[in-house]
């Protein structure tokens, strides 16, 4: 897979953050205070906003959701936990997907997948998803 220099820089940057974050409980405490839950997110989408996305996407059991640029699984895994939908989370840094995998197991999610892929070149066939979400990834 070919990636742009910008994507490579972003990937290296976020990979370092995910490695550093994995063992830092204090950052999770701050995240819970700011976002409402701890998912290894450093972004601007709160739990209340994720719940708004959930309603707008009309997610539920039987719905297949794609979350692009999910990092450590936020908000895709959260939305799957809350609604019972099937979810595929994607991002470039494998380190984030490893954290997402651990979290999916912890949350006992049955229908989820993680794919290392660029948002510019998603490896999915047409008609694979009922809903698409991302938060501040594609600008």
């Amino acid at each position, binding site marked *: 897979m070919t990636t742009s220099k*910008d994507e490579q820089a972003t990937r290296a940057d976020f990979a370092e953050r995910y490695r550093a974050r994995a063992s830092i409980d204090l*950052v999770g405490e*701050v995240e819970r205070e700011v976002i409402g839950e701890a998912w290894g997110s450093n972004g*601007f989408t709160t739990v209340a906003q994720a719940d708004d996305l959930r309603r707008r996407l009309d997610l539920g059991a039987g719905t297949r959701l794609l979350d692009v640029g999910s990092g450590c699984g936020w908000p895709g895994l959260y939305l799957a936990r809350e609604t019972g939908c099937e979810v595929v989370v994607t991002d470039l840094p494998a380190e984030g997907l490893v954290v997402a995998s651990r979290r999916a197991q912890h949350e006992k999610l049955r229908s989820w997948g993680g794919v290392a892929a660029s948002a510019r070149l998603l490896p999915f066939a047409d008609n694979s998803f009922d809903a*698409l*979400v991302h938060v*501040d990834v*594609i*600008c």
Partner: protein
Amino acid sequence: MNPGGRTSFTTIVVPDGLSKSEHRRAARMGPRAVTSTRPINVLMEAAGFEAIEVDDVTQDFIDTAEAWFKAFATRAVELRPLLGNEFDYRQRARQEMITAAGRGWLRRLLVNGTTPSS
């Protein structure tokens, strides 16, 4: 996307109407991917979405960025040794985004759309 599929997402953009120098500064102060110069509804239509709705949620963005900044500042003594240079990098980035959004140089949009039913 399946027919009748739905998307709902947030994106941070540089609004129309800025001078070239303001646009360059806004792009530098925003997230790394803030580069597109085409309106989001045009991009959505080009991608085949319909029933497109775009809401401005910039104030939510500013509020959350400020909450991150304050929470980190309050715990700076504990967090800076743990995060090293990352601590100051994140705080500086948040401060710049708050400033840019406050000046109207960055906007956060909530975008919704559906794919045609058939």
